[in-house]
């Protein structure tokens, strides 16, 4: 698949993201694929800042910023208003971080998906509250340091399986995607656009600042997350039909962890435990997809 996304650039340079920010890479692929007939709802997240201060904007589309926990509800209202104006051309999108999706925004998301509201909800997942300075979220993975899981209190709980939760809602379409696999990401954006009803994209978006790694590793780390099965690429249709888009060949999780400062305290025994957890999740996913 060949795509010239640059011609359709809807993200200005001069945005306020950190160097190597995966959330900006995700936004560029997303918006340049979806196109300009898009209204975006942004609940509190890194992108509340990245989009720029009044009176500037780094996005060339209409944007409404909103309170942290309201993505699903705000988009519902925006869609309803546009529908009442007979505007069916516009695609409504929620662009939220993991905190605004997994945690504080979960109720509004669940409500919107239960009502099968007609919009695309994108969670760009950087696995912690990065905008407020790296505090743990329910998306923070087992083993990670954050400012609220410091020292020996590194997170010893699993990352919430948000895809599973949404599948249980029988959502029309849900897919994981990664900034390191653009073709797969673009395919999923197009597919999401072609479907009516509630749709969810879970995009793995590395955060060099919060993950304590060099900015040039952003895409490499995102690729390794897929290759190690830590973040598998798959789709779920109508909550039941699972398809795995990429099947890696037995990478060891350890390599992925060694490159990130947030995991530097982990010891061999922890890697073994994490490997078990990853393998277990993968087996379960393969079973669902079979």
């Amino acid at each position, binding site marked *: 698949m060949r795509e010239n996304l640059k011609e359709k650039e809807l993200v200005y340079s001069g945005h306020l993201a950190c160097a190597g920010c995966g959330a900006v890479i995700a936004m560029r692929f997303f918006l340049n694929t979806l196109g*300009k*007939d*898009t*209204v975006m*709802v942004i609940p509190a997240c890194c992108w*509340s*800042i990245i*989009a*720029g*201060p*009044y*009176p500037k*904007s780094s*996005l*060339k*589309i*209409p*944007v*409404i*910023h*909103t*309170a942290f*926990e*309201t993505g*699903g*509800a*705000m*988009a*519902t*209202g*925006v*869609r*309803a*208003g*546009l*529908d*009442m*104006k007979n*505007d069916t*051309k*516009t695609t409504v999108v929620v662009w939220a971080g993991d905190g605004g999706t997994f945690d504080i925004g979960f*109720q*509004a998301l*669940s*409500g919107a998906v*239960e*009502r099968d509201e007609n919009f695309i909800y994108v969670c760009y997942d950087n696995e912690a509250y990065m905008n407020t300075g790296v505090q743990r979220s329910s998306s923070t993975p087992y083993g990670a340091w954050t400012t609220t899981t410091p020292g020996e209190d590194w997170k010893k709980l699993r990352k919430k399986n948000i895809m599973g939760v949404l599948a249980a809602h029988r959502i029309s379409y849900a897919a994981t995607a990664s900034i390191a696999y653009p073709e797969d990401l673009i395919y999923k954006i197009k597919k999401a656009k072609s479907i009516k009803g509630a749709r969810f994209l879970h995009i793995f978006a590395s955060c060099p600042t919060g993950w304590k790694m060099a900015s040039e590793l952003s895409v490499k780390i995102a690729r390794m997350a897929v290759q190690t099965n830590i973040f598998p690429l798959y789709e779920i249709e109508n909550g039941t039909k699972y398809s795995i888009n990429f099947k890696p060949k037995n990478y060891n999780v350890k390599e992925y962890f060694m490159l990130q400062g947030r995991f530097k305290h982990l010891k061999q025994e922890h890697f073994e435990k994490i490997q078990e957890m990853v393998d277990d999740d993968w087996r379960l996913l393969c079973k669902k997809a079979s």
Partner: protein
Amino acid sequence: MKRVLEGSHAAAEAVRLARVKVISAFPITPQTHIVEKLSEFCSNGSMDAKFIKVESEHSALAAVIGSQSTGVRSFTATSSQGLALMHELLHWTSGARLPVVMVEVNRALAPGWNIWTDQTDSLSQRDTGWIQLYCETGQEVLDTTLMAYKLAEAVFLPVMVVLDAFFLSHTYEPVDVPEQESADKFLPDFEPAFSLDIRNAYTLNQLATPDVYMEMRYDMHLAMEDAKNRMADIENEFSKIFGRKYLPVEPFRCDDAETVFVTSGTITSTCRQLVNDLRKKGERVGLLKIKMFRPFPVKEVCNCLKNIKQVAVIDRNFSFGAGGIFAQEVRAALYGFINPAPCVMGFVCGLGGRDVTIETLTTIYKKAKNREAGQMESVWIDLKK
């Protein structure tokens, strides 16, 4: 056409007449009859509107902010706990300069669970940038809700139309329901000053640095001040079409009065009766009903109370550590403007829906007339031992 309607249904009729396009609400007693009636209107085609049945009040207001941001007239209704849950988004609505209208039914806040009337829920939202209008009758609820859209859309601030639980929300009264044609004449289609539209890309509600935030807030302040004048014009226009008028404050038999009650909501009706009874006995007593609480009608309150000796403010609400909320506002309004100021006494009664009867108000009148209450304290009436 005159119909016998509940206060709740009067509110719903006004929303229908305003041709609201998007409604979003979450059920809470005693607001339910409003949203049930509106669901019926949307379902049977009486209204061309979308009713979003959300999973919380927080989401109800979020959805309404979303729809109003696309430039369509939007509505929500709530009460008590629901309003408290909306608190964050109350600020959001006014800060986003959205002319949303909400009907809020005054109900006590828990714990303990109490579904009966009490004004502390709405009054504790007084600093959220919403215009607040308190109603006494079903007719006033209908008329105020229609006028609320006109006012909100004139100043780009949201309006809360407030009514007492049960005493008004569930009480049937004759209500003149205007014809759609007259309602349309009074309230034409909404023309948004800005909206989310792919043909003209705006960013709304974005990051505002110290360099710009203060001016944004000052603009809201100016809009709130402007609401007083706009409301006067709107009431005149409304009165020309429908022959009814309410005003921000309504003085009743105050002209030669020595003692004046200050009331809001349905207690006003009981108080009117008492004032008439006392006047027959030669007592020099009057009543000042406050309809507009935000913006607070300082000038009108001062004008009415300037020659009064004793003022008895009735508060069906309480701010712990400060006192009855209307009493505080009245004192603040008079301070520095009227010299010597009347003796303002605050009386707290009827919390959690306890009946405020003629007897209750008579007790208050005696205490106020004889100045048996201090000016710095709140006197709690009908407390049980």
